[in-house]
């Protein structure tokens, strides 16, 4: 931000350049002591030392540069701000109703569940529905899909996309052409990809959804918990900054682990990665299997349940859905058996 430094008086510019802190963001987050540090030069040569008053003026100038007027909550309902709170539909009416319209663009949404319960299916369906135009509930943008376990299920994606094309024939979207897939199986390359290659992709194509399937596979292998916490935080901050800049949703999927809660004697299933991850995600949804089955054709399908564990907007609702060849669909209502007429004898 060359303009910012140029408008300051000369001695403040020198102070900032001496410590090599050049952007207003860095000026605000560097502690005061770094500006006033006199250890780097000899006492005699510290002719123009930095006073606390100078640092205060410098920080206030930086604050003024980054100033944002507070908007009243009322005006957040008007159009330019309102787009920040839009949602991506799931493509299934029951899920949309339960989650208040779909996945929110703000913050990270986490979908947790045991293995084989259908998280990847829901993510695949989301990556198709985000490409729908805004009138149908999507964003009209592409998807960046990062796979960390197993190969990407491309054949299943093709199957669901055919069902989508049949549902929305008027749109004529090339569903498969807007999904960018990346396989990363280890944490260092993944962090490198997120910090360097993802912003490039976001700049070149319009992306509306970033999916990481799954976060647990990467971070579960850590033994050093401090490093794990730091890396998780770094990843989340990077993702949130992109989400904010390019208006895209971020969805991560998580696995479950059994743990003994202090004070209770039985083992309970909780999502992996503990409190650190729970503090970073904004919405958490849990998918589980329900001991109910539904007969379609000649197949018995197990009913799945989506439950909102916590979210700032919606109450803790839950709903049921099925996974069929067409993707994620509502559980059809059971048809009433025709009344059997009894003859009164």
């Amino acid at each position, binding site marked *: 931000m060359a303009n910012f430094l140029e408008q300051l008086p000369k001695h403040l510019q020198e102070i900032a350049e001496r410590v090599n802190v050049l952007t207003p963001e860095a000026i605000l987050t560097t502690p005061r002591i770094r500006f006033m540090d006199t250890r780097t030069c000899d006492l005699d040569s510290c002719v123009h030392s930095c006073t606390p008053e100078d640092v205060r003026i410098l920080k206030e100038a930086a604050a003024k540069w980054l100033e944002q007027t507070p908007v009243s909550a009322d005006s957040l309902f008007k159009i330019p701000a309102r787009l920040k709170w839009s949602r991506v539909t799931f493509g299934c009416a029951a899920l949309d109703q339960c989650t208040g319209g779909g996945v929110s663009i703000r913050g990270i949404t986490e979908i947790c569940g045991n293995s084989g319960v259908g998280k990847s299916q829901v993510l695949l369906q989301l990556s198709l529905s985000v490409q729908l135009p805004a009138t149908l509930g999507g964003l009209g943008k592409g998807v960046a899909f990062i796979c960390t376990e197993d190969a990407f299920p491309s054949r299943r994606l093709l199957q669901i996309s055919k069902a989508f094309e049949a549902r929305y024939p008027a749109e004529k979207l090339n569903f498969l052409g807007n999904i960018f897939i990346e396989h990363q199986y280890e944490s260092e390359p993944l962090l490198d990809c997120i910090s360097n290659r993802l912003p490039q992709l976001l700049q070149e194509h319009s992306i509306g959804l970033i999916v990481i399937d799954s976060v647990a596979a990467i971070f579960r292998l850590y033994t050093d918990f401090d490093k794990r916490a730091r890396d998780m935080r770094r990843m989340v901050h990077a993702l949130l900054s992109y989400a904010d800049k390019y208006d895209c949703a971020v969805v991560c999927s998580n696995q479950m682990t059994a743990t003994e809660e202090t004070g209770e004697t039985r083992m309970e299933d909780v999502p992996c990665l503990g409190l650190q991850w729970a503090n970073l995600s*904004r919405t958490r949804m849990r998918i589980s299997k329900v001991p109910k089955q539904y007969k379609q054709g000649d197949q018995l399908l197990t009913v799945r349940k989506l439950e909102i564990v916590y979210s700032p907007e919606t109450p803790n609702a839950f709903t049921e859905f099925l996974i069929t060849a067409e993707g994620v669909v509502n559980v059809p209502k059971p048809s009433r058996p025709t009344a059997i007429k009894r003859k009164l004898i």
Partner: protein
Amino acid sequence: MELKSAKCLKYAKSANIATDISGLDQYLNGGLQQGKVYELVGRAGSGKTQLCMRLCLNIQLPQNEYGSEAKAIYFDTRKDFDPIRLKELAEELVTRPSVRQTSGLLPTATEMLRNVFYVDCHTAAHLVAGLLNCYKYLAREPNIKLIIVDSISFAIRSLDNILARTELLMELHTVMRKLQMKHNLTFVLTNNLAFRRKRRRRFELEAVLGQKHAQIINKRIWLMKNGCFLGKWSKTKRFICKLST
């Protein structure tokens, strides 16, 4: 600065902000007091953001309903704020029978929303800029009596260097203290829980951000599964009441 006797401070009534948790309000004799820094701690999903939004609305209630007819600023670092939910809370508050009876002019939900100001902070630097610019916002709207920072731990922990974090936190506290002294504001911060290693290799649930910070804030309110607690540390917290929802 004049010297006031403790006796005249005892009889000075300060406006409190109701928290809608009945046991807590009873304990605090009406709610959160003016001129103090409170901290809300709890697990993810325990209701800290909901309580913050509730406080933004409660402060607009008239004096005898435990409000101050004042406005609020909300600094959001985690994008937890949702205007639709705030509108729902406002509509529910307006239809509450006690509010309709005592207030002279009935505030509508949109008017209540207009008195809540929102600052979206993407990074820690934006939060620092926002707090440093607060005196400007207060000059424009002198009736602001509540500032909410949600959540301060998310912004501070985005810096990697631990020394930089402590310094930045102390600088934020100096700024807040100056504002508090000058305008008699209430600050509500939101914090997270983490497991900290105690003696004999056991882990205990503690609030994040360290000891210095814990000694500067006035009160720490814990929102846990078992109920609502008040106290600075896990061992010294006192049980106040059970949380219904």
